[in-house]
């Protein structure tokens, strides 16, 4: 591989890792701070990606793609003809909104119940979303998938240089999400979430409306996942229901958060780059070592070693100490 090839690879890698970091931050809001067990990330992932794609993709030439069934084509409406690619930003916002609107009723019916019901419900959403996009062919071309999803600012740069433009876009969105989440969890709002994670009953005895805060956290996390999905759609530019398999759309994100450090936003981002680095880097290993099953095995080894050696992840949760308080030697280890 020549130098340019390596740089191209690294840029592509950083884009995917950056997108995964957005998902890991969303999961951190759910699990890391609030203790909500969401094992259906793939559902919000798909919903966000399809929403953004449907809003920005124009239907292809009928002669060339005769069986293309598609309910999108919104971007041809003169509604928002501002010269800039306003539709992409709209798509991003709509993806977040759409995921929030789905998370709201699901959270409303399950968050009062025991924890495990949320897990089952999220698993159910993931499968429902997948089946809707698979079977409702008029919506997004069913199993054949949506293709020709446009490039963000595609008319500015040549297709070959697209990744170099898209990487900063992803990083900017990641930075905005990071700051928003970090601000939120460091505020009294985040303190209530952590209290709920630690002990729901005690949080209620401290006067907190546990259900309301859980619902807010669930919706916020889902919206962030929608943003991640939208970023993904404009990166790979081809979506089919099979894209969102539980392995790469749910499990790997959990691995990232566990490895990086649940309850720590820097950890979520670090975990995304480390785990994606291993997943992506191991494909260059020679012979059977580059097989997907072995690469998955490597991620398994990583998770187990982190859990054994550093149970809190590479960066554990930070202790929020107050400067105004008298300092004392720790009773136990911090």
């Amino acid at each position, binding site marked *: 591989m020549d130098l340019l090839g390596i740089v191209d690879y690294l840029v592509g890698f950083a884009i995917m890792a950056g997108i995964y970091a957005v998902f890991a931050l969303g999961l951190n809001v759910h699990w890391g701070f609030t203790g909500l067990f969401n094992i259906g990330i793939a559902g919000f992932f798909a919903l966000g990606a399809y929403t953004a794609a449907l809003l920005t993709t124009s239907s292809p030439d009928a002669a060339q793609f005769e069986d293309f069934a598609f309910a999108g084509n919104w971007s041809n409406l003169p509604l928002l003809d501002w010269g800039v690619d306003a539709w992409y930003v709209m798509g991003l916002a709509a993806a977040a909104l759409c995921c929030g609107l789905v998370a709201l009723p699901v959270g409303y019916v399950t968050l009062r119940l025991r924890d495990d019901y949320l897990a089952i419900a999220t698993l159910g959403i993931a499968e429902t979303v997948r089946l809707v996009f698979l079977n409702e062919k008029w919506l997004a071309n069913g199993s054949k998938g949506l293709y020709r999803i446009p490039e963000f600012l595609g008319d500015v740069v040549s297709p070959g240089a697209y990744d170099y433009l898209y990487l900063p876009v992803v990083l900017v969105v990641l930075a905005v999400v990071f700051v928003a989440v970090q601000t939120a969890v460091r*505020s009294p709002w985040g303190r209530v979430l952590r209290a709920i994670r630690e002990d729901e009953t005690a949080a209620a*005895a401290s006067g907190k409306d546990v259900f309301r805060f859980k619902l807010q956290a669930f919706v*916020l996390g889902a919206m962030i996942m929608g943003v991640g999905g939208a970023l993904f759609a404009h990166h790979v530019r081809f979506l089919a229901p099979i894209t969102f398999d539980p392995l790469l759309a749910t499990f790997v994100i959990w691995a990232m958060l566990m490895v990086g450090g649940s309850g720590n936003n820097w950890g979520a981002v670090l975990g995304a780059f480390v785990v994606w680095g291993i997943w992506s880097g191991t494909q260059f290993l020679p012979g059977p070592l580059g097989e997907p099953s072995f690469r998955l095995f490597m991620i398994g080894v990583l998770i187990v070693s982190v859990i054994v050696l550093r149970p809190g992840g590479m960066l554990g949760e930070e202790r*929020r100490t107050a400067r105004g*308080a008298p300092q*004392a030697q720790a009773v136990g280890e911090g």
Partner: protein
Amino acid sequence: MAATAPILQVQDVVKDFDGLRAVDHCTFDVWPDAITGLIGPNGAGKTTLFNLLSGALAPTSGRIIFDGRRIDGMEMHETFGLGLVRTFQIPREMARMTVLENLMLVPAPQLGERLWASWLTPWRVARQERRIEAQALDALGLVSLSHLANEYAGNLSGGQKKLLELARTLMAEPKMVLLDEPGAGVNRILLRSIASNILRASVERGVAFIIIEHDMQLVMALCDPIVVMANGSVIAQGTPLQVQQDPRVLEAYLGGQIHGAA
């Protein structure tokens, strides 16, 4: 010492768990200027009654009136909002949060608990946080835990967790506090400090207390009146002296149940 109306009225309250009647037609009043003791043998229904009062459980029948309002069937955060705060028999602390955070959590309503406020007006949230932090440090000082402010609450000893629970109730600026065995597992010196804190809150801040406690020395010294429960029912109430001399109380404590069952 002359309160005109009871702050809490428990009227004919019943709680059934499937076949088991844990609380059986309980009726008593609690006065705002008093520290009321709630005693009785194990399994008498005292903690279940606390769960009913605080909103952790809803009664099967009966009425609970707090400060002129019916609260039976309310949720815990709602009764908290009315000024009724409880502690737990086994302390429930947020283990992986610092002692100070455990207390700063409590005051309500907090501006920063609204997501938009922490994003859009962080300076106002920060100002309120400084005030709450000072208040929390004060409360820690009252229970002599200041030196542990930045420690994880999960690392405290059992007795220190009891003190933290007490500090938590002070942070809430309540009208009434339900303490479930504040003295269990606490050494004598710590116990004295807990008792003096309770007394001070009662006298200086006018907080009403109901205390479940098995340490009779503490109960007799601190509480007046005393309500005695056995088998889910209130079997006696009155001053410490009246209760001590009541034959039904002696029977309940010294094996009356065996008599009754035979």
